[in-house]
């Protein structure tokens, strides 16, 4: 793994909200083509960690490197231009999809390509239709998000993120807002992306999924990394009591 390029490098990351320590001394790397699964109880700082990487919230201290460029170095951010450039390497899929309700499915996927990446309308639509086909949603191109099921909306949001050609795609509990019978369709989309060697970071409560898909697992609790390693080590043979206790609640996880 170390021979391939580092896509995300996080070191000694700290995030405090007022005096509350949400993330404490977190370090890890994600390499090209790798899938990192992040698991842990609610409120353990998983989402905040993704938000720090996505520049949706400011870090308190530590460093983040994206594709060899320093996003933040010991708590000091890069200049605006570079931040924007780095941000374009990253894609995020939200728990609540956050599709733009006033745009059709197609516009949701083409608008940023046209207005952010300066693609022509034809290029953008071509990319969008290819992605929609992959998501099995060609027939919904002209529908509005409100006309879709949650699973379909989430697939559109994945297509929207992929259309920007990110180097890495981050998922923030992509199935948590979905009915149980709809989670499968999202998980299989993510699985097929993994087969194409898309670099991904997936925050999830789906233990079996994390175990099967990930190259590397991080178990977080109370803002720290409790355990980190291969899925086999962390999920099948956890060493820490905290991890064992957490995993025992997911009977399907082992």
């Amino acid at each position, binding site marked *: 793994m170390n021979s391939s390029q580092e896509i995300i490098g996080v070191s000694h990351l700290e995030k405090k909200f007022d005096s509350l320590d949400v993330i404490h001394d977190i370090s890890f790397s994600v390499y090209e083509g790798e899938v990192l699964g992040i698991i842990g109880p609610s409120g353990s700082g998983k989402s905040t960690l993704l938000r720090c990487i*996505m*520049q*949706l919230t400011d870090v308190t201290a530590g460093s983040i490197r994206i594709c060899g460029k320093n996003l933040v170095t010991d708590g000091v951010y890069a200049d605006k231009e570079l931040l*924007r450039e780095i*941000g*374009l390497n*990253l*894609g*995020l899929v*939200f728990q*609540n999809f*956050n*599709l*733009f*309700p*006033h745009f059709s499915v197609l516009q949701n996927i083409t*608008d*940023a390509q046209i*207005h*952010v*990446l300066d693609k022509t309308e034809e290029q953008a639509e071509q990319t969008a239709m290819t992605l929609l086909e992959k998501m099995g949603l060609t027939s919904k191109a002209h529908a*509005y*998000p*409100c006309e879709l099921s949650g699973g379909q909306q989430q697939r559109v949001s994945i297509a*929207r*993120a992929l259309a*920007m050609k990110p180097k890495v795609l981050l998922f923030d509990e992509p199935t948590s807002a979905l009915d149980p019978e709809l989670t499968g369709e999202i998980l299989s989309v993510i699985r097929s992306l993994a087969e194409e060697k898309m670099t991904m970071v997936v925050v999830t409560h789906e233990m079996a999924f994390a175990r099967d898909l990930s190259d590397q697992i991080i178990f977080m609790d109370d803002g720290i990394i409790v355990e980190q390693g291969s899925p086999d080590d962390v999920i099948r043979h956890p060493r820490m009591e905290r991890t064992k206790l957490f995993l025992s609640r997911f009977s399907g996880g082992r």
Partner: protein
Amino acid sequence: MIQMLVIMLQGTVVSLEVFFLTLLFSLPLGLPVTAARMSKNSVVSQIANVFMLIIRGTPLMLQLIFVYFMPYHIFKVSWDRFVAAIVALSVNYAAYFAEIYRGGILAIPAGQYEAAKVLGYTRWQTFYRIVLPQVVRHIIPATGNEVITLVKDTALVQVIGVAELLHVAQTTSSRQFSTMPLFVAGVFYFVMNWAVSAAFQQFEKKLNYYR
């Protein structure tokens, strides 16, 4: 009868001029007022706050009188009554529209801004392409309400001597010793507001394609 109607139609034209000019200026003017009101800079937002408190806390009729007579008391020159009427009404309505806009902006979920940021939209693009179209939809009912009120508030400009519809109706009424002109004026206002309601309903229907 015909002569009365002709006079009153002339008054209606003045009312419509006041109405459209006020909308033309107050609708856009509400935007910077909202921006100031929502500014993170507390001095700016306080100034906007005080402005809105004064405008919404005093009678519009008083504001019309104030705007028309103030230049005379300060500079000893008077200005055009019609212009004064438009200025006073526009400033007044901008304050109300600003508050409607603010409500519309606050109704946009944080996730919309985050999705836009993550996709690389600039702040201006986020506002223009993502937020504003959704705000417009949110605020149509409240704005329609305000616009209907404006049609009736144009009658207030007669306090500074602008010969709008109600003023004309009153003078005609006393000249002819008849309440008929007042009744006709009522019908005219009603018809104007009927048109306004229909226009807003149409507008709402057109934007009803989602959610």
